């Protein structure tokens, strides 16, 4: 059996939403190079709707695929809904991840939460 599902490999080989959004409404960066995975997520938000999401990731196949899938899952969604995204949902959407790779998908959830916090802060709102 291969390490990753077809879905993971598809998102790893052809990651969606790679890049940077200039003047993003929310930016979240998590992880550190010491532990081996770093993710930075950029959000464009209009009227509390996420109109665009992009990411940059330094990390393994699971980290890259999770960033790709997570950004796909929140695009077009209201921020309130995006804030509910869990790593479990990301993992399920990827048809599962090997147990030792779950921690990489947690980063995607955390990066999105951090980007939303940044957005709330910039807009002077508290959650």
């Amino acid at each position, binding site marked *: 059996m291969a390490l990753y599902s077809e879905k993971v*490999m598809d998102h*790893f*080989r052809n*990651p969606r939403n*790679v*890049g*940077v959004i200039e003047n993003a409404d929310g930016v979240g*960066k998590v992880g550190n*190079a*010491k*532990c*081996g*995975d*770093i*993710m*930075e997520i950029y959000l464009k938000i209009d009227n509390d709707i996420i109109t665009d999401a992009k990411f*940059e*990731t*330094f*990390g*393994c*196949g*699971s*980290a*890259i695929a999770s960033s790709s899938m997570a950004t796909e899952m929140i695009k077009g969604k209201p921020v309130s809904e995006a804030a509910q995204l869990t790593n479990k949902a990301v993992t399920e959407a990827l048809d599962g991840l090997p147990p*030792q*790779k779950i921690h*990489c998908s947690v980063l995607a959830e955390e990066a999105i939460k951090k980007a939303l916090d940044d957005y709330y802060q910039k807009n002077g709102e508290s959650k």
Partner: protein
Amino acid sequence: MNIYADNAATTKMSKAAIEAMLPYMDEIYGNPSSLHSVGQRANEALADARMRIATLLNCEPREITFTSGGSEADNQALISAAKLGERVGKKHIISTAFEHHAVLHTLDKLGKMGFEITLLDVPENGLITPEEVEAAIRPDTCLVSVMYANNEIGTVQPITEIGAVCRAHGVLFHTDAVQAAGHLHIDIKAQNIDMLSLSAHKFHGPKGIGVLYSKKGILLSNVIEGGAQERGKRAGTENLPAIMGMAAALEEACHSIDEHAAHLIPLRNKLIDGLAQIPHSILNGDKDKRLPSNVHFCFEGIEGESLLLLLDDKGICASSGSACTSGSLDPSHVLLAIGRPHEIAHGSLRLSLSEDVTEEEVDYMIQAVTDVVTYLRNMSPVWRELTSGKSEFIIK
């Protein structure tokens, strides 16, 4: 193009090894311990294999113990030497920080049993010196274990000189020659070796079979208890097909060491020079004192597992010491031992070439690695910070 460049992990079996094994599956399938003729034919083959391997290593057949591989040989060597030391009140063992886990984890166990373990620091070039070993030897040192060639960065240790230092101080010397056997010359007597481990699957022999050489007079302690096989020192019906395959593979490999090195070294150097052209990359281990087949780099700003997966898509099988390939959060202990920071160690790549690698394949690997590193850097937030000056490059 399909290139298997992970020969340090394991090798393809040679035709000679496979053919040498076949008769021992359905013709001479007896148990070497049986008294009847079928068993005795097997026993003769066993003796023959032992003698041929002893000849290749320049030792006596009775000094060869067949084990299930390199790990078991390492375990038994260390445990035996420790027990011998303990009997005379010597409970200090010297080894290095970049040994294989078969050695390091056995030393951990011995540490818990009250032995004192000194792990020598490894310099950036990946070469232990005899002086460093000598300085660590104490009156209560019973064993020095230093690998012949490192399995990740491929550096070749001055084991002859280290062995001489140990002899002079009356300390047993073990070397893990798993990566060296069949690729570098081994002469037990000339190299002052008391104990040595090797494993057949690293030189085109079968998996699950290896050798522990231990010099006459060194009493081995059993790791596997049971029947009286291997002079009572390693129980279990001998894996004769594997032993015959190992003997054939070792003969073939040992007879071609110089020829293979002459072919490999220029290609290895071409690959090293080609990959060194990638900005902010660094070769791990001394450029010359390394296995003819080993190329090992770190690339700043990327992570090793994604590098491996994309190289696999391009038909290249390689390996990495990144944390996410191992399932632990720490990258390779070998890279940390030679002083590479975590950030850099995650972006490592080992290409271990096979003897029939071609120049065309080397050119292809240089191009493929360059392309994949560039691609991954372009989606790496670490790389963007480095290139925008927000953080400083570690590899200049």
